[in-house]
């Protein structure tokens, strides 16, 4: 089969695209494929297979099509689209935006509610305690109960210090 652009060389890159109910086939030689910007000659996005149809499109569109790259491991948006998997734990921050929509369709919720490692559980308890104290403080101020507010302020100070300690270790 000859390349459908230069009509000279043997076509080695075969692309099939299905949009709506239309199927399009393009056969290109390697050179034309490169010049036409088909930078992914394997042509097949594993993301669609692993994460559900349309996933690769979603990955591409999010982040304004900007070429995100993970600062920790060098994984790119194109790698993500191709592999359907991420490079390292930091990638979850790097690709937070393209992931957001995906996680929504894939899972029951977008926030973890299950097991938390014991070492982090303490930190989480402290931050919950802090939110609780701050609410009480706001209420005390509103009610002009300044004695109570002073006690709460000290308690918040202590809790903040403890929380800082646990995250530091």
């Amino acid at each position: 089969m000859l390349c459908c652009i230069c009509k000279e060389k043997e076509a080695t890159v075969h692309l099939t695209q299905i949009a709506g109910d239309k199927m399009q086939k393009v056969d290109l030689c390697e050179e034309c494929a490169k010049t036409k910007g088909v930078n992914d000659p394997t042509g097949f996005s594993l993301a669609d297979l692993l994460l559900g149809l349309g996933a690769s499109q979603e990955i591409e569109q999010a982040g304004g099509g900007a070429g995100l790259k993970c600062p920790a491991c060098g994984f790119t948006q194109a790698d993500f689209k191709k592999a359907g998997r991420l490079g390292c734990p930091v990638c979850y921050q790097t690709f937070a935006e393209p992931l957001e929509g995906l996680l929504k369709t894939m899972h029951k919720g977008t926030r973890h509610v299950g097991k938390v490692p014991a070492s982090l559980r303490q930190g989480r308890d402290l931050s919950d305690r802090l939110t609780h104290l701050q609410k009480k403080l706001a209420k005390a101020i509103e009610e002009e109960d300044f004695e109570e507010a002073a006690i709460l302020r000290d308690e918040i100070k202590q809790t903040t210090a403890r929380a800082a300690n646990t995250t530091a270790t």
Partner: protein
Amino acid sequence: MDLNGFLIPPAESARRKGPHDRIVMSSRVRLARNLKDAAFPGWAKKAERIRVLEIIQPAIENLPEMKDAFSGTMDRLSTLDKQILVERHLISREHAAKSAGSGLVLNRDEALCFMINEEDHLRMQALCPGLQLRRAWGTMDAADSVLEKKLTYAFSPDLGYLTACPTNLGTGIRVSAMLHLPGLVLAEQINPIIQSVNKLGLAVRGLYGEGTEALGNVFQVSNQMTLGETEIAIVERLEKVLAQIIEHEENARASLLEKKPKMVYNHIGRAYGILANSHSISSKETMNLLSLMRLGVDMGLFPGVDRSLVDELFILTQPAHLQRQHSEKLSAEDRDLIRADMVRERLRPVGRPVTRPPAEPGGGLDKSAM
């Protein structure tokens, strides 16, 4: 350490008992975990994978429940060893393809299995006979809680345990049960059941997991969503659905015996006939016919025959297990001959199936298991 010497003989593992084991062959809970400061195995360079392996492997070996465990790297296992592990459902096909930089730790009774550097740094599973999802989760949870003290997991307060594939994010849990559903298949009710299970957000897969066919009427049901739901909620959801599938399967068996006894006897009788008399038989055909024999045993059509005989043959007739018993390399044709010889021999003491008048109540259904 020699893997062959380590693994439990099939005759023994086929005799393991658990609740509802005439339908639920096994229960499994798998957790995916990763180390904080390392690239996931699919993206990490070999040196980094080896570094991760050398951190995780000793941590697992030191767990109290891993005393006398088998521990090795994948490059030191032969292709045959890996295939045997796949046939026993101890490792995934993906892990069997791994070599240097990946590892395996398996405990003495094969109930706990840790795959290092599969898709994630650590994939660990607890396996129990019959329907025991809670027990499997309890075992896995306990081991994980010990490990987290030695390993710094990649964890985000918002997203939970971070995994290579976003489909496992959050709890990183996959809860699954392996079900033998010949009644629903014969009654042609299996497809609507699969569809409604899918609608509940659960996956139904074949015998060897993702992308495999349901050989021998064996199906795996598991959760798909891992984020936004607690582990125990997932276990409970699966338990509910499994209870219903068990009920449907029991009903299908009872109603087949009542309404179409000839059809049932015909299937089971032919399965016995072929298994007991063939001289060449493929692995696939063997599985499908053994499934019908297993149904026959459950229905009381083979008096005096224990289900473990069939379950042992399920394991022994698979390609790698057959190959293991022979020093020379067997071709697929050789295996078909040897497999037929083995099955004929093992079924020699088994008489042909009895038939019962369809009026007899219960049809030999085992009520005690319910």
